[in-house]
């Protein structure tokens, strides 16, 4: 999925180390380290220039920059980077290229580069997208990259995810099967039931859905699509069959800031990189809540 230049990364790492150690060194060593670092970036930039000339096309990135701790970056701005386009290049690849060749202070989260860890959801060309899963060739150029909307920006493309995690935890996102089941034994699930919850298990906690939701933006206490989907995953799991637990899960969901806040705008479903039918799951839980409260049968 991702095609990166490994040496470049090693270089960036070692220069970061050099910087960290600098305090313990003599002034001369400090100057040397600094010189080496800037030299290595000068080389990287020169290399980038050559690669751009060699490449058939270069893509322009417009990247949101902001850092409350650095003077001159406190006023948010967009920086432009020219990156040589290669076939199969993702937005994450392009960001990494820009960081490794132009500006080591460009900050963003990423890890797996294969849509598994959920750390690189960003606002790309006006939509929440997972950068490692978004091909540059599918986007309109120049490509504009911003941090996820409706979350506090910590630095550059990094947002504070704490509130999102709090909402995820508030629905008790863990299996609470039969406590009396003999220990060390599997609690088996039927194939049909597994199929039913299959999509809901795919969430990678990237927060794209929450960021896209207009209701979540206006109501900070709203559980949000991902948390409700998490609750769906356990509520629909037939192995959690104690009546009390079901009631308990429903009570969390039908509270004032639960499923009833959803206005079926479908924005979460549109942006989810794992194609989870979020609106469908929320609607199903609404019907469960109604059925549970109106017992005509």
């Amino acid at each position, binding site marked *: 999925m991702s095609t990166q230049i490994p040496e470049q990364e090693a270089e960036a790492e070692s220069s970061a180390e050099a910087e960290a150690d600098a305090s313990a060194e003599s002034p001369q060593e400090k100057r040397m380290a600094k010189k080496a670092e800037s030299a290595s970036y000068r080389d990287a930039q020169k290399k980038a220039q050559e690669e751009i000339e060699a490449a058939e096309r270069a893509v322009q990135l417009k990247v949101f920059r*902001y850092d*409350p701790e650095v003077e001159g970056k406190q006023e*948010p701005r967009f920086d432009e980077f020219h990156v040589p386009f290669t076939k199969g290049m993702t937005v994450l690849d392009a960001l990494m290229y820009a960081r490794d060749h132009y500006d080591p202070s460009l900050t963003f989260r990423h890890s797996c580069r294969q849509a598994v860890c959920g750390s690189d959801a960003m606002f790309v060309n*006006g*939509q929440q997208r997972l950068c490692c899963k978004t091909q540059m060739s599918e986007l309109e150029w120049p490509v504009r990259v911003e941090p996820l*909307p*409706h979350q*506090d*920006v*910590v*630095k550059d493309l990094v947002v*504070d995810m704490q509130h999102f995690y709090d909402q995820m935890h508030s629905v008790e996102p863990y299996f609470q099967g039969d406590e009396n089941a003999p220990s060390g034994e599997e609690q088996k699930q039927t194939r049909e039931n597994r199929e039913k919850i299959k999509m809901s298990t795919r969430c990678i906690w990237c927060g794209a859905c929450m960021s896209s939701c*207009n209701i979540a*933006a206006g109501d900070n206490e709203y559980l949000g699509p991902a948390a409700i989907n998490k609750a769906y995953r356990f509520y629909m799991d037939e192995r959690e069959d104690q009546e009390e637990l079901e009631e308990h899960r429903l009570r969390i969901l039908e509270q004032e800031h639960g499923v009833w806040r959803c*206005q*079926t*705008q*479908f*924005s979460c*479903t*549109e942006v989810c990189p794992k194609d989870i*039918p979020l*609106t*469908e799951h929320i*609607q*199903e839980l*609404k*019907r469960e809540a109604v059925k549970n409260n109106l017992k005509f049968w």
Partner: protein
Amino acid sequence: MSQSYNRGLVEDFGRWKEFQAGMWAWIFHKFTGWILVGYLFTHIAVLSTAIQGPESYTTTLQSLESIFVVRILEIGLLSTAVFHILNGTRLLLVDLGIGLGSQDKSFYASLVLTGAIVVASVPTFLAGLGGGV
């Protein structure tokens, strides 16, 4: 604790160009719903000034209907109501969990159908303007 930068109103209102079908449907639905409520009050207010007798009712309505702008507003009211009803039906289906996979197509269908009905109604609404029948 890091400080945060508030991206302000731009965050909430500047993104309208980037909306997708479901979001437009939601905005139009709220908008048309409240226009209908507004119309309901105007409607009652205007008619209640014209209930002194059959003549006053007839003259009030005739003078209103002779104004071109009123005819245009009527067309606007029809389109507002038709869209609200069609999209309202779409929302009822969504609530019942029917056809969620084609929610965008059903929104476009509501729009197209509204357009067609409104265009077809124009001759009726403009009939007899300028002293005709």
